[in-house]
């Protein structure tokens, strides 16, 4: 029985990898929601696109500070999950580069 469980878990892992790859492939195919190419494109796609359309993101023109305030507000008030520390910087850099105030 123990062996069967392990086999099942291995099977499940491959299925999940397959599903993730399929989702990534579809997202890539759909051009990451029209987000400009650059480091952080994928991370922004998933972090931002889970609740609302990326159309909202693409309208903005905010400084890095204001982007940070915005992300903090979304975490504290709007139920957004906190990005990992690594993704936090990546996402902020991406947003302030491509949708910044310069």
């Amino acid at each position, binding site marked *: 029985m123990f062996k069967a469980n392990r086999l099942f878990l291995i099977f499940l892992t491959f299925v999940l990898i397959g599903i993730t790859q399929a989702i990534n492939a579809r997202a890539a*195919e759909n051009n990451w929601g029209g987000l400009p190419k650059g480091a952080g494109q994928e991370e922004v796609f998933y972090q931002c696109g889970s*609740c*609302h359309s990326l*159309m909202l993101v693409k309208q*903005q023109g905010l400084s890095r500070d204001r982007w940070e305030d*915005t992300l903090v507000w979304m975490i504290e*008030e*709007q*139920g957004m999950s906190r990005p990992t520390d690594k993704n936090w910087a990546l996402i902020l850099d991406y947003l302030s580069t491509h949708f910044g*105030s310069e």
Partner: protein
Amino acid sequence: MEKSGVGKKTAAGCETKVKPSRGVDRRTFLGGATGLAAIAAAVGDVIPFWRNLPEEFIPIAMAEDQFSIDGKRELTVLNDRPVNAETPPHLLDDDVTPTARHFVRNNGIPPTDIDLAAWRLLIDGEVDKPLSLSLDDLRSKFEVVKLNLQLECGGNGRAFFEPKAKGNQWTYGAVGCSQWTGVRLADVLNAAGVKSTAVYTGHYGADLHLSGDSKKEAISRGVPIAKAMNPYNLIAFEQNGAPIHPENGAPLRLVVPGWPGSCSQKWLNRIWVRDQVHDGAKMMGTSYRVPRYPVAPGEEVAKEDFAIIESMPVKSLITSPQTGVKVGDRKLLVRGHAWAGDRSVSRVDITIDFGRTWVSAELNTPANPFAWQTFSTQVSFPERGYYEVWARATDDTGVQQPFSIAWNPKGYLNNMMHRIAVYVS
């Protein structure tokens, strides 16, 4: 390239039409077998009849998606999730805004599977007798009135802020004045019996928070009790004589004209009469608040220095002709609407020479208080060339529209003059 969908169901249960539009030059893709293989890969299948594709056609499955909203015509979509769409000024020319042309503003996801018989409006809190009213109760127990009521989003005009403010980048069209049928909010509150401890209302609706968390409200704002008791606020159940559009708050909504649109809760199911300033979603922090004192563009302002927006300021919109029009005549009829929140508009002046000289337009009285007022005038151009027609409204206390934006961090209350371009040949 993005694939077009067949049709997406919005949360409101309406099919949104996904209309393909011309996108890219076919030559970009087609260069013999390699190009065809690329298209086939993108489309996701072989194309048996590829030889029949006319030269200028892009396969529909590769054309850009164009999001449109069922029952709305030619609105500019700012966001498709949540749905936010505004009306180009020249499509707001009607004295009464048709439903198909009324702007759409969502903070969350509209409810689906609405059971009209089961819909209830709860009135509770600082009242003698809490009420739970069905749609039939509202129609039968209270006087039903029809009013032309103007609504404007607090962030209308945000797009023109420099530096940019965060949020939906509305330009001119988050405004409308439809005819609403309903019962007076004051009559319903009086039926419940408002206690002397009442300070503010708190509004609740059936729209879902974007995160899907049912414990969070997408938006829940309110107004001071004095504003709530104004006889021109409606609990509305019809828009232009027909059921309210699903994106405009069906089956029941508040219409609290003259204040930011966010005070007019859509998909209304509860009014909580409170003994304190309401602290619901998007009442607090800096939501719908502006600094108490004038600030420089880009200035950082401490949270405690913000005050809640109440009456919207005086503003006007030129709705005819469309900006960029080319005319052959030296004379042109200019039309538009003006409004002033809780106040009325006393005059609208028009200039065609960048503000050097002004003429006073003919200005109608509103159909009823809190309807917008239509203005018109004929302007005369001295010679051919490029002109701008500007409109400047003055309210009944003498306050006028400004020449530039009073910047504030969240991009609210842009009531700068509207300017349109006219090319006279």
